[in-house]
């Protein structure tokens, strides 16, 4: 089976800033992989490298088996119809001078897909798929609400029929009730159209709702990848445990009974990441070994899920912080 996305040892440095520092992950066709992390973890940078909005410093990015990391822009262009990205803020990612219809048609035009007539039909079809009426196609982005604009972004991203969609915080700028609609829509489109999705977000609840597997990033590296239900019910890495315990659950009875893993300090600078395990200065259970050697991301437990922690045993058992 050809993977929809295979990232191997991806590195992205901005001068001295080691934003992404050796990340490997895969997304199967039709799968939603949630990529979670806090500010400065490098998750958005990774998402942008995957669609080559940023040149990578080192490593491989294979989309449908083809390495795109080193391709020239000209050779990359025809491949771009296979992958696309949706951003957090639709207001700043839609051209204000183009009508919604033209915005959605643009990828079709650039990739020379169809004729003028079939493109027009395709735009109407896409508008319908994202839950907008076809007359919205004649309007401009400023006439739409935030939720409607995000629907337009989705229609544009999907118009050329990509097999991989990177969604970078697609609901973070939206109100709660609108978020629900956009999350439902992404889930429905993904089920109907079958594209693979790298869903980048800090919103754990959204990932829990949408993703089949979840990758957790901290300071430029992955610390854990596991099936959604395993990750949320039994997180293995101490950072994953702290992250999940810090996100409040909208249920006062449950929330007030939970025990929280309180992290000391702040996320360190990606210019000089800590030695060994990057999480060790803040980890409540760190041992001297953690400061000395980098823990590899290795398979543990019956499901061979990946975790990068010296303290997690091969059978998947390990420290329980809360």
């Amino acid at each position, binding site marked *: 089976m050809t993977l929809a996305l295979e990232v191997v040892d991806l590195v992205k440095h901005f001068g001295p800033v080691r934003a992404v520092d050796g990340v490997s992950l895969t997304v199967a066709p039709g799968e939603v992989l949630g990529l979670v992390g*806090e*500010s400065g973890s490098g998750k958005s940078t990774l998402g942008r490298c995957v669609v080559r909005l940023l040149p990578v410093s080192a490593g491989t990015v294979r989309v449908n088996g083809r390495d795109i990391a080193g391709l020239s822009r000209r050779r990359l262009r025809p491949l771009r119809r296979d992958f696309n990205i949706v951003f957090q803020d639709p207001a700043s990612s839609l051209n204000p001078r183009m009508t919604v219809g033209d915005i959605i048609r643009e990828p079709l035009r650039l990739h020379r897909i169809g004729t003028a007539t079939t493109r027009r039909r395709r735009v109407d079809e896409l508008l319908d798929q994202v*839950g*907008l*009426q076809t007359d919205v196609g004649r309007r401009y982005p400023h006439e739409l*609400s935030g*939720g409607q604009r995000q629907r337009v972004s989705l229609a544009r991203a999907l118009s050329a029929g990509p097999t991989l969609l990177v969604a970078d915080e697609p609901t973070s700028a939206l*109100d*709660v*009730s609108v*978020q*629900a*609609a956009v*999350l*439902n*829509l992404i*889930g*429905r489109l993904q089920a109907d159209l079958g594209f693979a999705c790298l869903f980048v977000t*800090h919103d*754990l*609840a*959204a990932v*829990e*709702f949408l993703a089949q597997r979840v990758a957790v990033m901290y300071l430029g590296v992955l610390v854990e990848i596991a099936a959604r239900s395993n990750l*949320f019910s039994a997180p293995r890495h101490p950072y994953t445990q*702290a*992250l999940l*315990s*810090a*996100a*409040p*659950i*909208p*249920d*006062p*009875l*449950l*929330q*007030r009974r939970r025990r*929280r893993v*309180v*992290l000391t*300090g*702040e*996320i360190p600078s990606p210019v000089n990441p800590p030695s060994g395990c990057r999480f060790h200065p803040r980890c409540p259970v760190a041992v001297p070994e953690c400061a000395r050697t980098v823990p590899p991301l290795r398979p543990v437990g019956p499901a061979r899920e990946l975790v990068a922690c010296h303290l997690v045993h091969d059978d998947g058992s390990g420290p329980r912080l809360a």
Partner: protein
Amino acid sequence: MKPPLLTVDGLTVLFRTEDGPVLAVDAASFDVAEREVLAIVGESGCGKSVTALALTRLLPGSASIGGSVSLTGRSLLSLGESQLRDVRGRDIAYVFQEPMTSLNPVLTVGRQIGEVLRRHQGLRGAAVTRRATELLDMVGIPLPGRRVGEYPHQLSGGMRQRVMIAMAIACRPKLLIADEPTTALDVTVQAGILDVLRDLRGEIGMAVLLITHDLGVVADIADRVVVMYAGRVIEQAPTEQLFAHHGHHYTHGLLDAVPNPARHAEGGLREIPGRVPTMRSSPDACTFADRCGSADDTCRTARPDLAPGPAGHLVRCWHPLQPANAVLPADIGEGPR
């Protein structure tokens, strides 16, 4: 029973804009008790932030404010500007969402906290720095003696918000108004800030008026909740009661729209069709009627009062949900087309 710390009665805020009047807050009434954490929740444009700012008249000249606000029996809206300045920062302090835009980038942290101490407490010289350092320590900033001489850009987002809180509690206010204090922060940092607010409430005995859209934060820290929609208070209840036995269809929609890891929504999240209306004037109708699946002619032609509902707490709805039967599958329709 002790009288409430803050009483808001019929607070109305009308903005004059180029496109005509906008009624941002429509006769909002609520109390905050001493040491209580009261959360005002709602989505963008519901009037929650304007309400918070109107309490001490921190609004531009285009706003006209009606109704009454009293703090320990003293009416705030009739005070003169100089009297109000004594109230702001001393009795009622604010913390806003984005600490970087609230802090002065060219002054040290100590200097900015010191400004409050000089203005309201008459402290001078070394006493100012000493007290500022103590305050930084109180809000959990490590090495406060060094941080007090640093500039905002040298601090992380979480630390900046702690500085804002230090500044806000400098005069041991009776009421801290926190407007989305953790929205710009990461969850692990947010957890720390919420802990600080919780601890300070005990330590200095202040009440907190928390403005937020985050129901997780509400579940974590609030004693009571006021839900606002299109400028009106539509429901008000103790936190557990609100989550378990909400009476308003909008509250119900809001709670079900949030993905909740503790309660899997396999059939999809609930959507609320349509959008929040902007009010020009106060309609004789329920402002949620156009988006509510249970609305009938009464809802569209008569204004519901905020009155005790089936579960005993205040609800502004003609057909409130029954407490035993708080989930009606048909009451909010499918998503917008």
